[in-house]
């Protein structure tokens, strides 16, 4: 994965893992890869991976089993929130982009439904 160099790497690793969880690439209760494996896969420092995983443990989305590693929470409510947060992020991005193009907020729904309708007809 490509990192942005002006954002702390541990935050980007967190985002990457949150995305994997939201997309169900990492499932509830699943063991996530070892620290060193993740470090190698992402070409980052082991310390940085550890920091990201520590924070995710603190946030409750991961939990540690002694000597076994890190696992994704089985708390359905938290997983739902995680997914929702990712959707909200993307929607924020979309709305911001539209605003920069001069589209008013009250036009957004109409624009989006017209677009989807057009797409349906082309399919």
């Amino acid at each position, binding site marked *: 994965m490509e*990192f*942005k*160099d*002006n*954002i*702390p*790497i*541990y935050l980007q690793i967190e985002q990457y893992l949150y995305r994997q969880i939201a997309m169900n690439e990492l499932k509830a209760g699943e063991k996530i890869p070892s620290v*060193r494996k993740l*470090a*190698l896969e*992402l*070409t*980052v*420092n*082991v*310390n*940085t991976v550890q920091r990201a995983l520590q924070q995710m443990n603190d946030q409750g989305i991961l939990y540690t089993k002694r000597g076994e590693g890190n696992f994704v929470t089985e708390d359905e409510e938290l997983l739902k929130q995680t997914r929702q947060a990712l959707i909200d992020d993307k929607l924020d991005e979309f709305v911001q982009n539209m605003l920069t193009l001069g589209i008013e907020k009250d036009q957004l729904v109409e624009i989006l439904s017209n677009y989807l309708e057009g797409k349906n007809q082309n399919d």
Partner: protein
Amino acid sequence: MTNLLKITGLNYKKNQKYILRDVNLTLDEGKIIALLGENGAGKTSLMRVIAGVAKNYSGQVELAGGKEEAFRKAHLSFTDGLSGFGDTTKIKEVVNFYESLYSDFSENEFDELRKFMKLDLDMRLNQLSRGMREKLIIALTFARKADLYLLDEPFGGIDAMARKKIINSIILWKEDKATILISDHFVNEISTLLDEVVIIKNQTVFAHKSTDEIRENHESIEEYYEGLYEDEGE
């Protein structure tokens, strides 16, 4: 965090000329740190002083609690350019030499590294490309068990694949408590790997900062590093 290296009031002269002046630097254990600076800034000199190879300095260099050069040498592993070996020396002869010289050199460890780097023991030094030569140097350096590893410009003039191999070997072989200091004049290729950067400018340690701290200010490591040079001339 435990201090691993502590340099206080270091001055180093070569031919009556200051190469390093009033250097103070403390490094913790367990980190990957870049030593950055323009060509000729004194990066290699600083490494040679730490390693106990460069002699005529004043000030204190303490590594893992010891100040004696022999003690330091036993606790660190420094890449050297293989300059003492003849062109036709085989890799296995270099390995034998390392094994006899360093009691902490592990032939098993070297063998793992050598396989990872895809180097053949029967190859002669003059048959190695620049990238292969650098991979050999890294394998020899990491095959020792040390507290501090000093890698002097390991990425100079090598291709992307060799660079990737070396970076992966750092991730795979670094023990938790060991610290690795990597000198380079170009930070981008290793920036995701770094805990800290140390910048040499005006013959001294001009800045020493954690990469998280730099990025929390929304600056890239390269922007930060270049920014320190742009302030020049004010």
